[in-house]
């Protein structure tokens, strides 16, 4: 069943006389529980796509349906509620709140997400129970990203959105984080969308969407994706 449906979605940025078509008539559908990689060079429009799917941005034209509901016309507050309940984000730069501890960063989502999961359990699952009361600045990059994953999953969202989640990490740590991300998404049965320019990640995806110059070049299902361990990083 399609959980995400993009229909002729266009996003135009204008600043002064300068008009930039970041996304130009993108259409595709995604099925629930799949691992999707959006691939493309920088500036191709893949982050724009992700932001719109995440409810951070609204399309200039076209419709986006998530779980059968049109999110392209929601108000600011409705979008906030959508972000709180339906999607979880993992960013390249983790975006943890520096003044909250590891535990608090994850427990935070309880205030907004109706079906939030237990924070301590999530932290245990990413293997950082020893660091519950540390501040983010006391952790390594990889650890911070694991907390960020725990936070995203603690919301118990339908979809997990990741923007270059390994972009700021060395390749060894990157693989570990990626492994964790995938296994947890699988355990919890989440749809996971990763935006990257890293070709290797595409090899392990169920679905690969290639984006170039704001247009969807291809959207192919891979019948036999490789496992993380098979890929050469």
């Amino acid at each position, binding site marked *: 069943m399609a959980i995400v449906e993009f229909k002729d979605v266009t996003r135009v940025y204008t600043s002064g006389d300068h008009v930039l078509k970041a996304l130009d008539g993108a259409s595709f559908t995604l099925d629930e529980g799949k691992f999707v990689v959006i691939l493309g060079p920088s500036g191709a429009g893949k*982050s724009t796509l992700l*932001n719109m799917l*995440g409810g*951070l*941005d609204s399309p200039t034209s076209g419709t986006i349906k998530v779980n059968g509901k049109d999110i392209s016309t929601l108000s*600011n*507050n409705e979008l*906030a*509620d*959508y*972000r*709180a*309940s339906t999607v979880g*984000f993992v*960013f*390249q*730069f983790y*975006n*943890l*709140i*520096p*003044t*909250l501890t590891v535990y*608090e960063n994850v*427990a*935070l*989502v309880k*205030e*907004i*997400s109706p079906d939030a999961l237990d924070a301590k359990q999530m932290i245990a699952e990413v293997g950082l129970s020893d660091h519950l*009361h540390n*501040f*983010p*600045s*006391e952790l390594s990059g990889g650890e911070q990203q694991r907390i960020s994953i725990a*936070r995203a999953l603690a*919301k118990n969202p339908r979809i997990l959105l990741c923007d270059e989640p390994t972009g700021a990490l060395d390749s060894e740590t990157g693989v570990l984080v990626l492994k964790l991300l995938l296994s947890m998404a699988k355990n919890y049965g989440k749809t996971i969308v990763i935006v990257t320019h890293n070709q290797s990640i595409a090899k392990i995806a169920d679905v690969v969407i290639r984006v170039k110059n704001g247009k969807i070049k291809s959207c192919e299902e891979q019948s036999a994706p490789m496992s993380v361990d098979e890929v050469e990083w």
Partner: protein
Amino acid sequence: MLIRKLFRTAWRYKSQFLSMILMIAIGVGVFLGFNIEWKSIEADTTAFFEETDYADFRLYEETGFSEEDIEKIQEIDGVEAATRYLAVNAEWKDTKKSVSLNVSENYTVSTMLIMEGSEYDEGADGIWLSDRFAAENDIAVGDTLELSYMGVDISSEVLGLVKSSENMICVADENQLMPDYEKFGFAYISPEKLEEALGMVFYPQVNIISDMEKAELEETVKSALGRTILVTSKDEHIAYAGAQSEAQEGKTMGSILPVLFLAIGVLTMMTTMHRIAANEKVQIGTLKALGFRDSRILRHYTAYGLVIGLLGTALGIGLGYGIASLIVSPAGMMSTYIDIPEWKLIMPAFCIPILIAILVFLTLISSFSVKKMLKGTAADALRPYTPKAMKKSVIEKLFFWERLSFGTKWNIRDILRHKSRSAMTLIGVFGCMLLLVGGLGMKDTMAGFMTVLDEEVSNYTTKITLSESADHAEIEALAEDVSGDWQASTGISYEGETITLEIYHADNEWIRFVDAENNLMELGDDGVYLCLRLADTAEIGDTIEFSPYGSEETYRVKVAGYLRSLMTECIVMTDAYAESMEIPYHISAIYTDESSEDIENSSIIAGKQDKDMIMETYDSFMELMDLMVMIFVVGAIILGTVVLYNLGIMSYVERHRELATLKVLGFRDKHIGRLLISQNIWLTVIGVLIGLPGGVAVLYVLITSLVSEYELSLTIGVLTYSVSILLTFGVSLVVGWMVARKNKTIDMVEALKGRE
């Protein structure tokens, strides 16, 4: 090119720049305003004193000084000039108005300044009248003025309109707080005119210009005349003492408020420059990487501090003169109290080095802020500024910590992490609160003072002033006739000071007494009561000594208690106690419930004053108070708004990323807004809690600096507390809301794109 960058950067941070300039301008303005005020009062009145030969000493003898006396005094070594003098209150016939009638026999001391009309002529048959009294009463040169003194007519043509330093603060007696030129003025006549009207020569006063010490003069006069004479120095004369105490008040104000405002200005500059430098760190690093020398970059950024300092100081100087001219100018507040011909604004010399020091300091602040960012290699400089890493504070070890909501924790940590920013917010709220409580409390205190004076102490309808020559039996008959209470006042020497001994017969309670708590009290017949200003000179039950002027006697009396004397510094006793101690006295005033029209004029009556008229003279004083309070309130609101807004914006910019993250997670704008405002509210609560006692303390200092003039009791109404708290919270909430509103416009996508 760098110059262009200078302007563009300034434009980018325009609200920060503006608030820095404003705060410095306000700091400098308040500092200069009060200092110019007291310096100008001092200098302007001193100039006037010199111009009109103001007397350094006044000698009093009720029976009058003889021609021989004055010759002997003039011969004393160290006496530059001396004149026999008369200053009595004379009624303006058929009106309730009166003037202080002045005669200076030699016209070498206590002269006047002719503003209009003819010069002084000691043989002329005419009156020189106070120009302000004339203006209020539509009297012009050439009009005839009919005065009456002790039943004697003194009518004459007005020859000139004048000002005089002797009457610079023109009040009928110590019960009148502020001049009221519509009802009371002053006039000079020539000695010849006086003699012609009275049919005799009578001068109960000698005015002297001399550099001698008071004690020395007392001694020499005593040996020259062979008797003790009551000598008062200019410190005890209303004109000099009044101007001095105004200057003193200005000095007190000038030492409290400006410190607060300047501190806020400088602190604003420090925190803001630090933030700007931190924000600009990458740019600073880029310039360094491009090959600009540190010194060049430093000069570039230091220029901001200098420009801000210069603009702020320049605005502040303007503001300072503006504030001072509100007070010291022909139409300013002080003109309702002091009557001088020229109001010049003079800046005390010490202000200039202080201004320069402030300027240098501000420049150094910006220099240091940038220097920190330049440290290390170009690569170090290129890295964005990272605030101190989070550490756990003591609070987190407390038992309740874990139970706090994440928002509360977030805010508490944020407050502790940005200590200087939080401290500045506190100081802003504290200052706002302090000004409100101080300003409104001052008004409460003065209003309380008025109420005690009007409703408690002064229970009479009319005060009859008696002539110096009135006979005791006649006075008693009059007092009996109008069923009045009476008062006798004498100058006495007590503990080396000249104060007043007041003896009351107050059986009818037309005049009443209050204790330190403003409760009515009765005077007993077994001792004296010291006014609160003298309270620390003796304990109850102690025996004190004093000697009346003009007498060799020393009296030893018992202290029975203390009372609040609103105006005079005095020792009070009942007539019964005075008689039992055999202290002689001369009744000077009768208080009665009869209205002045029903009291027949007679030769023993020197004047009649309605209580209502006396109280009306306080109106203009209260209007002044209102204006002062307005200035305080407006100042408080400006201060609070500018400081809080500036800090709010800085805090918002710093937490931009965190706020964007919260937004992405799904927090609604309102929820984030509440978080931002609640931090403001906590700081406001703390600021208010310390600002309240702070305001009360400032008020206390102000009131004690006034204590030589009046005995004020610190009064702060519930309304003052509530208005101050509400206004402070109002300012904090409005500003908080203005800042919180901004989070709606956060561009989540932009804010999350890596670290700038």
